[in-house]
Each structure stands twice: as C-alpha cells, then as structure tokens.
C-alpha cells in the first residue's frame, strides 16, 4: 500500500509539472499583451514596464525563473493588480470559493446518497421515478442555466434569498445549490444502480439468512459495496464543481477564485492565470489521489493487490 501510494504521488507531481509547462507556454499565445491601453502607451514606458516584470527576457529564461520561484511556493506578481502577488490574491479569494464548493459537494453527496438508496429500495415506485427524473434533469441542465434560473426565481421573483453578491450565510445557499444539482444527479444514479446490483448478490442472501434486519443489511452489508464504484466519480464530480464554480461565481458575483481566473484571462494577466491554473490542478490531482487511496480503505481486495505490486 505504501509503495503504491508513493508511486501515485510521484505520478501526481509529474502530471503537475506537465500542466504547468504547457500552460506557461499556452498563455503566451493569447492575443494581446498584459498591458492595458497598449496603443496609447509611449514606447519607453512600455519597455520599462515589460522590463520590470521580466517580460523582456527570452521565454526560456522566464520559464526557468518561474519554475524556480514556483518550487519555493512563489507564484510571482500579478500583472494586472498593482503590487499584489498571486499568492496574496489566491489566499484572499479562496474563502468564498471553498465555502460554496464544499457546501455544494457535501449537500450533493448526502442528498444523492439518500435518493439513490431510496430509489434502489423502492424500485419501480414513484420515488424511483422522481429520482430518475432528477438525475436526468441534473445531468442535462448546465449549471450556468440553473444558476441564472435560481437567481432569478428564488432571488428576484420570490425574494427568498439574495440573488447575488457576497454577504452573510444566506448568500452562499443559491450558488451551492446550483453547484450541487449535478452532484445529486450523478451520485444518486450511481448509488441506485450499484445498490440494485449489490442487493441481488449472494452475500446479501447470506446476511438475510443470518436473521439480520433489513436496515442492518443495508447499512452493514450493502452500502459499503455499493459505494466502491461510486467513489470513482468523486474525482470527476469535484472537477465539475471546480469548473462549474468558474461560471457560477461570475453569475452570482462571488469574489472567489473562479471569478479571479476568468478576469485574469480577460486581461492577459499571465502570472495570475498560471497561478490559478496551478491551484486548480493541485486541487484536482489531490482529489483523484485521495480517491485512489480511499479505494483501498473501502475495498480490502485492492489494498492487498496494491501491496503485492
């Protein structure tokens, strides 16, 4: 298990390196330069600014310097926000993003899990149909549409919750909800399918033959086995939350990292684009890493084969 974990960790670092390198060169291909009102600037001032930010050096030198700083945890200075480092910008913005993200995924997991289990146990009844309809709905409606609808109906029309911006807790509900619907849909669908399959397994019959109660059988024998494949989708789900948050944060005007990312692309703020990309990549890679390790925890068979490797 330890060897497997270390190997996975090494692969993760390699992936991160490739992402950073590719992004570094890709952002430079964006049309325009980081300079606002480029045409109006006198040539000397332009040169001076470029010099100051180290943008005049050959790209390869810039790359080496950037990587050098990155290893020390320094993401460089923002090109668009005067005198502020990317690290600072990220730490300022992480709070709101993390909050609505976590709230969204946890709410989605809990509701999805319950819905999936109930649908599997009440197969063919109206609850099952409602769950399938929710799943189809949740998977097919993009979350920016949903975010817009929620903001309009619940925020503007019925005035139940604030339609946008960032204030107290009530401002987090709609964005989290917009993010969680996809999670609910995916999780409930997976859990239902797996649960139906698991309930037909021989070991469920064995458990029943022991005289265990139905609730014991579900929680003690079925759920764990049904969750193994569902853990797989945790990775992609988190990615969905991340990418979804880019749009959802913009719609609700939340001062989060998604918002920062989109803004920085608009103004060619190379360092901030890179910084946020690295942030997202690290987050994504860690999630998949944790999910892989979790597998072993849930399913002892994987634990052992990993150790033998």
């Amino acid at each position, binding site marked *: 298990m330890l060897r497997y974990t270390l190997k996975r960790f090494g692969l993760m670092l390699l992936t991160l390196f490739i992402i950073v390198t590719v992004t570094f060169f890709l952002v430079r291909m964006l049309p325009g330069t980081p300079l606002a009102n480029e045409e109006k600037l006198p040539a000397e001032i332009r040169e001076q600014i470029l010099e100051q930010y180290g943008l005049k050096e050959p790209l390869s030198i810039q790359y080496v310097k950037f990587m050098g700083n990155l290893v020390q945890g320094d993401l460089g200075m923002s090109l668009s926000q005067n005198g502020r480092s990317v690290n600072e910008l990220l730490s300022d913005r992480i709070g709101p993003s993390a909050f609505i993200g976590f709230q969204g995924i946890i709410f989605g997991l809990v509701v999805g899990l319950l819905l999936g289990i109930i649908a599997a146990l009440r197969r063919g009844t109206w609850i099952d149909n409602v769950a399938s309809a929710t799943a189809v709905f949740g998977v097919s409606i993009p979350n920016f549409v949903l975010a817009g609808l929620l903001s309009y109906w619940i925020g503007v029309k019925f005035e139940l919750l604030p339609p946008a911006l960032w204030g107290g807790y009530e401002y987090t509900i709609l964005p989290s909800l917009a993010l969680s619907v996809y999670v609910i849909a995916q999780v409930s669908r997976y859990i239902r399918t797996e649960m139906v399959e698991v309930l037909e397994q*021989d*070991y469920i019959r064995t458990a029943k033959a*022991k*005289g265990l109660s*139905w609730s014991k059988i579900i929680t003690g024998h079925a759920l*764990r086995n049904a969750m*193994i494949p569902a853990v797989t989708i945790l990775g992609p789900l988190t990615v969905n939350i991340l990418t979804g948050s880019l749009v959802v944060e913009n719609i609700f005007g939340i001062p989060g990292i998604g918002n920062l990312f989109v803004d920085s692309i608009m103004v060619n703020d190379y360092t901030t684009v890179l910084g946020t990309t690295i942030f997202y990549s690290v987050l994504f890679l860690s999630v998949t890493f944790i999910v892989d390790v979790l597998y072993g925890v*849930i399913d*002892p*068979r994987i634990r052992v084969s990993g150790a033998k490797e």
Partner: protein
Amino acid sequence: MKPILEVSDLHVSFRSQDTEVKAIRGVDFTVGEGEVVAFVGESGSGKSVTFQTVMRLIPQPPAKIDKGKVLYGGRDLTKLSEIEMQKIRGKEIAMIFQDPMTSLNPTIRIGNQISESLIKHQKLSAKEAKERAIELLKIVGIPSPSERVEQFPHQFSGGMRQRAMIAMALACSPKLLIADEPTTALDVTIQAQIIDLLKNLQTKTGSSIVFITHDLGVVAEIADRVAVMYAGKIVESGTLDEIFYNPQHPYTWGLLQSMPKLDQNRDQELASIPGSCPSLVNPPAGCPFTGRCPHAMKICQEEMPEVTKSSSSHQVACWLQHPNAPEVKSPIEPERRWVD
C-alpha cells in the same frame, strides 16, 4: 422420531408480467430431530426453492407461496411476519449456500461476519462474539483461528471459505441446518473434507441437516433419508438403503445409472437421462417424467400418479406401482456397492 420440520402441500410459483412458473407443485415431507435428509434432483427441480421458501428467503414478488404449510415448532413459517422470521433465521434454522466465493461479503472481516448473528441472537458483546467466532473457526478446522478471524474472504481458499460459512451457520447452534449444495463449487478432496466436517458436527450437536445436492455420491456418504425431486414434486422418498438398493421410480433409476462406476471401462460413455425437464410454465397434467421415461404408458401422460407406500418410510409416485401396471424390473444391479 419427532419431526422438527413438516412441510405439507407446498405450492410456490414465480410470476413475471405474463408468465407464471410453477416451481413447486405440492411438496410434502418431514425432517425428524437429529436426522440428515438429502434432497436430490437435477437443476430446476425445485430443491433450492423449497428450502428458500422454508427460510422465506425467496423474493416475494416475483415468488408467491400459493398454498401449503411449513410447520416448525408448531408455527407455520409461511404465516409469520418478517420480524418473527428474523428471529428464526440464523438462530433456529441456518443455511449454508452453494458458492462460498460469492456468499461471503468481500468487504467485511470473517470474524465480523460470524459475530453478527451472535450479537443479534445471543446478545453477546462484540468482544465476546469475537472470542466465540475464534472458537467456531477452530471447531470447523481452520488453523490459527485468532489470526484468520481478522482476515477478509479473499484471503481464504475455497474450502476454507466454506468452512467459515459453516462456522457462521453453526454460530447460534441452530436446530436445523440447511446445506444448499455446499460442496458443488469445491474440488473433490475438499468436498470430502467438508462432508466429513458436517457429519462430525452433526453427530456432536445432534441437529438436523437438510442436504440439497445433485451428487448421489455425497448423498450416500451423509444421508439417513433421501427425497428425489423432479419438476417441482417429490417423486420418490425413502431411507438411504431403500433409495439405493430398492429404487422404484424410473427417474431414480436414471439418476443412479448416471453415477459413474470406479471400475467403468474408459471408453464407455457416461450414462445420462435423455431429454430435459419439462417447462414449468405449463406443467404437464400427468407425470412430469413421462417424456423421458423408457417405461411411459398412456395413463402417465394424462394423470399424475398417486403416492404409494411400499414400506412405512418408502414412498413413490409412479404408475408402475399400480396393480394393473406391467412388471418392470429395476435396471440397477442390486449387488452394486454405493458406500464404502
């Protein structure tokens, strides 16, 4: 012998949208205290369904108990509520299943799988249950049980898993043990070990065992009495000797003839009963074996034969038993030895 389980006129069917499979069509039998009764018959004859009905393990729907009684300790198990059944399963009647590979939960430690029923039925604490689980593993012959108890099913070999299954079934000292083809998925050497184990445990505990199998060799090893099932009915039943040395039903003859002999010539083809079981969607009105029976008569097709007794323990349902039927001699050599 005092009967522990009495099943009378049991009918079970499986319904889907437009078909109805009559899987069990009037089954009567008793299992006495301390007795080992073997149920034999080919796949689909209704052996497993009968006992999954006794345990109420068949999913209802699609299955439905149409008629009949399953008396255990004076109570009709078909009428009990699910909660009442939970107190019987595992405690009074336990079951061992065919495939030990799939019948154990892959994600739960063996010890915990054994402890579950102890905690539920005997109200033991988790610690006491674990100690008892170690004892049980020792009883069923698993070496270093205190380490094994912490392991997962995939760390056990096939034979050991079946031993663990037996330990699980024996945990609460049930009065009746139903073994549903417990050796089918195992190789021959392990089969013999498992049968020996069951035999020894039975002698020690004095519990009754129902042994479901299609292997007559196994039956000869373990059973006191034998019931032969075909197409949802018991066609012949009797003591071990009666079935092996004085079989009356042509289907029993066929089964016995299908057993390979040790001294059989190598290039001699293995005997089999031609044809296959009739569909139970529209079961035949007469004897279900008619189509495959070398001695079938006109009446066999039209009417189901009555059950006749040739001794107090030996019952057959065959028209050849009728006084007017032609004399047919059993093709089984009476000197053939079945048990060593």
